[in-house]
């Protein structure tokens, strides 16, 4: 199913990836081509198949519910583009 320009704009917003307006149409074409190619899976009969949930034949490991890490403030903030008073700082979200 081909994607139109507006659908691409919606997906791009959902993914929080800005796409300039003049690139929406070409991108719609590229994504439609990829999705069209993927459509070939429709011809595989999967009516009796369980979806794969894990490629490794193992159960999720468990561990004791205890704190194993912490007190790493400086390391955590070291790469922050903008840190303020031990916090990550972002543009104002609440008026």
């Amino acid at each position, binding site marked *: 199913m081909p*994607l139109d320009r507006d659908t*691409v704009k919606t*997906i*791009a*917003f*959902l*993914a*929080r*990836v*800005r*796409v*300039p307006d003049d690139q929406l149409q070409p*991108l719609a074409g*590229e*994504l439609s*081509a*990829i*999705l069209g*190619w*993927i459509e*070939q*899976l*429709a011809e*595989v009969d*999967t009516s009796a*198949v*369980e*979806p*794969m*949930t*894990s*490629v*490794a*034949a*193992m159960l*999720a*490991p468990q*561990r004791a519910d205890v704190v194993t890490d912490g007190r*790493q403030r400086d*390391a*955590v903030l*070291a*790469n*922050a*583009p*903008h840190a303020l008073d031990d916090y*990550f700082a*972002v*543009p104002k*979200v609440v008026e």
Partner: protein
Amino acid sequence: MSDLRDLSVVGAGDGLARGDFSAVELAEAHGAAIEGARDANAFITPTPELALERARASDERRRRGEARGPLDGIPIAVKDLFCTEGVLTTAASRILYNFVPPYESTVTQRLRDAGAVMLGKTNLDEFAMGSSNVTSHFGAVKNPWGPCDGKDLVPGGSSGGSAAAVAARLCLGATGTDTGGSIRQPASFCGIVGMKPTYGRCSRWGIVAFASSLDQAGPMARSVLDAAILLEAMAGHDERDSTSAPMAVDRFADAAANGDIRGLKVGIPAEYRLDGITGEIDALWEKGIDVLRGRGAEVIDVSLPHSRYALATYYIIAPAEASSNLARYDGVRFGLRVEAPSLDEMYERTRGEGFGAEVRRRILIGAYVLSAGYYDAYYLKAQKVRALIAEDFRKAFEDVDVLLTPTAPSDAFAIGEKMDDPITMYLNDVFTVPTSLAGLPALSLPAGLSGRGLPLGLQLIGRPFDEVTVLRAAAALEADVGFTPLPVRAYATPGG
């Protein structure tokens, strides 16, 4: 002393043990070669000072009689997808242009603990998404086998910098990661050995995530034995990765030194004989079959009927997982931030400007196939076909011990080719993606040259956690194929 760069890992280890040369001399010879080969763009961040520091520590250990094993003092390169403590780690993306991890990935920590000396961080496709290394924010890498017909060639991808560095003798071995073929296809293009172990063999902790159900680290080297030695150090259980297999590490190096394959059953999957595959790839495959048969293996035809759907399956699952994994790059905690008046705009501009075209494309495909109303039709469908693909392999391995196939459908192509249509690029991984979807171990080794004089690889695929059989068969193949040609661009050591 360019001869130091021609050594194998084993040969360099022996020389260090005999005192023929020091780890510092090894690091200096390779460091100078890396500097002289800037033009190849194989490294994003060379780390010559760190290399000398670690080499000196290795020499000191050896003087005290405390050398740690076959990798102590061996100079290696690390794909810039592994977090390295205090060393820039970019994933070849603008969005991580300034990221300096405060911690070390498990795999690189294990190599450090084994005494290996890191020479630097190698180039790759952005976030490991590509088959050419052309999508790197830091530019394309030149394959040392080029130029060919007047054009520079890609090294393959995504581990293209690692493959080029190993082939051009800028390091003795390197780490790579493989999601759909990112170790094996560049190994084939650059004439080296590359192995993706079983999913779960190597910890993913500290590796920048692309598609978590597929990503695996593995070694790249100039011989099967060297690759096995590296893998033995890299592998092992790690409780910080919940999919890391709680299994003992096998003696991979012993397997690679063996090569006795009498009675081994080798499967040849009929579906890998694609229309459009060139005659020379077919001929190479036949040569590999003859070699294995000549060594006493039994060759059996097998069928993997769902292989033809593997690429389409992969291009749903990998982008879906990538769109989720890459949600963390938001300009708040690390990496690039493009300022904007509102939080949403800040996210959008940071991610719009921080990610390159291929990464953006995959994030959008992933977001779409996971979105409400399309999840069942795309993502769930792909997970069902993936189950069928894995089941094909399971059935085949009831009759055979290992599979032999080509690694890639062609030799290395020119930088800039196959860029018009994403799907043409995706077809590079037609022989490697099915194995990734099934989580199986697979190795590529150089087996011959194309008509243009470029290397071509053959792929061996094994049962889950049976790397030992893959390495044994690879050693047999390597011994009798006798691949000895050298790349055109052998970067000289200045003053050497």
